[in-house]
């Protein structure tokens, strides 16, 4: 009796096996499809982490000035930039955050943006950079949208969401089924042959960095264009997120009637000038804006966005290394009144968490330690992607993909629910799942050669 298994145990075991194979299959295809993108994200991320050091080195000549007496007022520094680029529109001004840091005047000319670096003591220009040429900005663009605009943004978001699926399925595959043993679980088995070592070099390091990867994904997602924007809208609307205009939403408008604004006279003769048009409010001088920033205690390193239309406001925006120093302030361009002043302390609970997530993600919150920990996670990701790919190359038969055989997903009910749950939480995953099912239904299941190749 004891040697014969009852049919129900047999069933259970088989079922367990098919669940394992289903999850393995999903992990397998998702891995092959998204590995190249994960590699790109890990590599560009590793570089971008060190933006402060790299830019400090790259732009030394533009950034560093010798302190010499008092700084010139902002208006005079901007006037110098205007002299050099009379046709340009001045869009931003950034006072240096230290005695030895140059000021930056942002201008736009013929649809291109430039930064003019000004020595605040002499007013001399230290040089001009085309913003398109700032290499770290290009790397950020690569990291955030693969340099492909909205489509790239959605792809990165899809990759990030699917990385969550990879982590969840990966954890399931990694989870030890036999008795507890740290070897092959948290320490790779180096002496059990190549096959086992290959598996361990993928699964064990992946487990080590699971929390880190999940953290980078979850802190990166609020940036994304689809999931991120909707997430930000929901939490801002709830009163617990960023106040409006910090991330999404518009700034308040300058409160003045058009007829009360001074107009530039068009007439060539003084007699033809309608006095009432000329009389009125003029734009607040930028020196007043700088004075307001100092008075209100904005941490140096802020940028002033200069309004170029009648309703616009001066916006002071500071996103320094530490989340708790962040500030966004809107100033009426005519009266100089502070219309909104949002500091970290004014963020809702979720807003504060997201803000910390972002500075941690960028590696600025805790400086070098932060950068090193994040770099290790990125290097771990590269290792896991490469070893996963290697694992596949070594195991795959020559004429097939080498995916585990697909039992119907309906047998793995819990996994199906997890997938649907992830699909709802991350709508792009949901959409791509529907797409996969449609392709499976219409193509893979109907063409025998494809079916064999995919082992479906």
């Amino acid at each position, binding site marked *: 009796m004891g040697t014969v298994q009852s049919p129900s145990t047999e069933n259970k075991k088989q079922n367990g096996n098919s669940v394992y194979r289903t999850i393995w299959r999903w992990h397998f295809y998702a891995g092959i499809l998204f590995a190249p993108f994960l590699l790109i994200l890990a590599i560009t991320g590793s570089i971008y982490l060190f933006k402060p050091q790299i830019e400090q080195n790259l732009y030394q000549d533009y950034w560093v000035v010798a302190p010499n007496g008092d700084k010139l007022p902002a208006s005079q520094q901007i006037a110098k930039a205007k002299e050099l680029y009379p046709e340009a529109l001045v869009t931003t001004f950034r006072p240096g955050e230290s005695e030895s840091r140059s000021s930056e005047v942002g201008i736009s000319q013929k649809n291109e943006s430039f930064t003019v670096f000004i020595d605040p003591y002499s007013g001399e220009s230290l040089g001009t950079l085309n913003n398109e040429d700032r290499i770290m900005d290009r790397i950020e663009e690569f990291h955030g949208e693969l340099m492909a605009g909205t489509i790239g943004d959605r792809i990165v978001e899809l990759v990030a969401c699917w990385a969550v699926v990879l982590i969840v399925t990966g954890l399931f595959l990694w989870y030890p089924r036999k008795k507890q043993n740290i070897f092959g679980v948290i320490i790779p088995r180096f002496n059990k042959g190549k096959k086992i070592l290959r598996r361990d070099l993928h699964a064990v390091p992946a487990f080590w960095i699971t929390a880190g990867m999940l953290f980078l994904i979850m802190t990166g997602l609020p940036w994304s264009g689809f999931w991120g924007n909707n997430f930000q809208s929901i939490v801002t609307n709830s009163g617990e997120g960023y106040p409006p205009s910090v991330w999404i939403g518009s700034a308040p408008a300058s409160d003045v009637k058009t007829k009360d604004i001074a107009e530039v006279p068009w007439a060539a003769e*003084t007699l033809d000038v309608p006095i009432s048009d000329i009389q009125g409010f*003029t734009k607040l001088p930028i020196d007043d804006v700088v004075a307001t920033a100092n008075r209100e205690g904005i941490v140096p390193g802020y940028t002033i966005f200069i309004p170029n239309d009648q309703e616009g406001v001066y916006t002071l925006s500071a996103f320094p290394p530490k989340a708790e120093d962040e500030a966004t302030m809107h100033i009426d361009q005519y*009266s100089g009144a502070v219309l909104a*002043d949002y*500091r970290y302390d004014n963020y809702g609970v979720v807003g504060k968490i997201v803000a910390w997530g972002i500075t941690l993600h960028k590696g600025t919150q805790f400086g070098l330690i932060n950068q090193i920990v994040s770099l290790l996670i990125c290097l771990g990701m590269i290792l896991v992607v490469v070893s996963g790919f290697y694992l596949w190359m070594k195991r795959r038969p020559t004429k097939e993909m080498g995916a585990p055989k697909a039992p119907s997903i309906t047998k793995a009910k819990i996994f199906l629910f997890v997938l649907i749950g992830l699909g709802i939480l991350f709508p792009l995953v949901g959409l791509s799942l529907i797409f996969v099912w449609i392709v499976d239904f219409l193509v893979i299941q109907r063409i025998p050669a494809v079916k064999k190749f995919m082992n479906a």
Partner: protein
Amino acid sequence: MEKMKFLFTVLTACLLLSACSLSEDVAELYEKESPLKAEVTLPEFYSDDHKETIEVLLIQDGEKVNGADYVHFEIWKQDGTLHYYMEPAKEMGNGIYALSKDFKSDGLYYLKIHASNNGSIISPQMQFVVGDLSKEELEFLQSDIPVIESNNEHHH
């Protein structure tokens, strides 16, 4: 198959429709400022021996402001020939503060009101004309030179 198509359409539609936007009064949920607002009434200016009165109505949170912390007027001429540093305006009641001045020469002038109440500080700047503009002043107005700021350091 039809079922699948239907499901797909419904899900896509849901996704697109559920893309949320911010509610209009969302700013009410966060830290709010009470910005002062100044409405200035300029008289007709003549360079004769009569004084002209400039009035400003201060409004905060929709209410007229009486007993503001301070309201100072600063007036100067664009060509640099005249500069009255800050003078306190007289409170006229009903949120109105006024200053009377006798303008003796024609030209382009600037007025800066320094006012503060209940945590809001403003410094709106206006240009006005006494009599007629000179050719130089007109050219100045038509050039793109930024308005030179009054160079006083007495910020409150």
